[in-house]
């Protein structure tokens, strides 16, 4: 079993279907339609810098909401019996297996004008439009990605030994001290992977904004639209997105490593 040969087909595969396509994106981003080196595409792409920042902001808010919602839930799940835990985790995963467009479509139905929520609010005399704004997009994102935050948090929290918490209690810690000295430090790896698993897809997703956000697109939608007519500008935006996401991952990784050392 010392042979490297079984990897050869996949090494070739990666060259053709992973490396070459990325090289092509970078090539298109840095050339004009005649194939000469040019930064024109990036200049064109800069029109969308506001959309870009908007997408990052939406991703940031959605990730923060997911973290706040998921954290206490993951902790209380981790204190249940083994059997109950696996049951609950299973029920958390069911919605994840529904097609993501259908889940967003469900929110279109719920938030639409004359939809159920709108009717209830009207009944109480509140007249606001629920769909076609950033709030609706954030609700959709949180709905879509909340389980991705709960699961990694639960994984690390279920490894926190009950006796450590009891020991802290015996030594006179109050609830907040237990959280600050034991639960929080031990859950940091879960926070990091949860934040990564929510932030990256929310920042780069497309269609959620088209379904729920009205005319305000996100960067994923822009890439799709621009790509229909102009591969060069589209590639430039994709390169910027890729660099930002990679930077984010590197920072998160570094953060995780430091925690592991300290």
């Amino acid at each position, binding site marked *: *079993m*010392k042979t*490297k*040969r*079984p*990897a050869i*087909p*996949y*090494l070739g*595969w*990666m060259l*053709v*279907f*992973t490396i*070459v*396509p*990325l090289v*092509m*994106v970078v090539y*298109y981003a840095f050339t004009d339609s005649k194939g000469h080196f040019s930064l024109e595409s990036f200049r064109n792409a800069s029109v969308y810098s506001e959309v870009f920042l908007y997408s990052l902001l939406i991703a940031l808010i959605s990730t923060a909401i997911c973290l706040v*919602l998921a954290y*206490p*839930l993951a902790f*209380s799940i981790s204190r249940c019996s083994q059997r109950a835990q696996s049951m*609950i985790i299973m029920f958390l995963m*069911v*919605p994840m*297996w*529904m*097609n*993501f*467009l*259908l*889940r967003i*479509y*469900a929110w*279109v*139905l*719920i938030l639409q004008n*004359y939809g*159920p929520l709108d009717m209830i609010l009207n009944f109480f005399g509140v007249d606001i439009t629920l769909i076609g704004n950033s709030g609706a997009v954030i609700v959709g994102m949180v*709905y879509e990605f909340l*389980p991705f935050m709960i699961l990694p948090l639960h994984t690390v929290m279920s490894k926190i030994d009950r006796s450590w918490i009891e020991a802290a209690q015996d030594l006179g810690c109050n609830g907040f001290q237990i959280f600050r000295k034991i639960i929080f430090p031990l859950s940091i790896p879960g926070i990091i992977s949860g934040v990564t698993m929510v932030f*990256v*897809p929310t920042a*780069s997703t*497309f*269609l959620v904004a*088209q379904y729920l956000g009205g005319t305000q697109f996100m960067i*994923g939608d822009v*890439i*799709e639209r621009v*790509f229909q007519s102009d*591969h060069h500008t589209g*590639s430039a935006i*994709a390169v910027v*997105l*890729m660099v930002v*996401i990679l930077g984010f*991952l590197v920072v998160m990784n570094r953060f995780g490593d430091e925690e592991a050392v300290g």
Partner: protein
Amino acid sequence: MKKLRSKIYFIIIMAFLYLPIIYLIAYSFNDGKTSVWKGFTFKWYEALFNDTQIMNSLYNTLIVAILASVIATVLGTLAAIGIYNFKGGVRSAIQNVSNIPIINPEIVTGVSLMLLFTFAGVMMGFEMGFWTVLLAHIGFCTPYVILNVTPRLRQMDNSLYEAALDLGCTPIQAFFKVVFHELLPGILSGFLISFTYSLDDFVITYFTRGSRFQTLPIQIYTMTHQRINPKANALSAIMFVVIIGILLISNFVSARKDKEAAR
């Protein structure tokens, strides 16, 4: 008191996750297209099953998912074994490249493959369709197989394989009699993850499908984009029932296995 509070909180989150789906399913039985309830009907289900386009795309989705997950499983298992035998820096470099499709935003993977396939299509005279979707799916499934098989390789005792060789097995025989069995749980979970990801993929399929090839997620997009379509509700209901069914069966099977193991 504290227990009660966390129970209530748990119920609120579960309601948040499930109510939209339940609402979606409830309105698949509504005899009208708006959110006004107009009476009970099965007509959207009838319309769904009579829609040859939808049934056709269901068929396409299953074919792609089966082929992609089988091929990705074979390719990925072999790759995991080969990569495992590389040393230090080279190995982690290969693993990093292999993880690119997982780490990269899906949309970037999608457009990059679209560029490749359009270019290759012009050069070699083909159009995007079934084959390009299949290739793309194999591409994003294989890394998951590798990620699932590699830990099993690490746990495996290499002397078992050598023992099989000493006892007269050819390397191929030794592989199937020893290594394959040791890796099987990892191979299976890699296969299942690949299958479900392929079934559900929208973004990468969207960019690599060309103009005619339809899969179910693409069909869902056509049905629900900027319009209300109760057939999508009916489809959700069916998918939900299938998912719950699979979960109950798998739970039942694993519970029985636990019982047998306990005996």
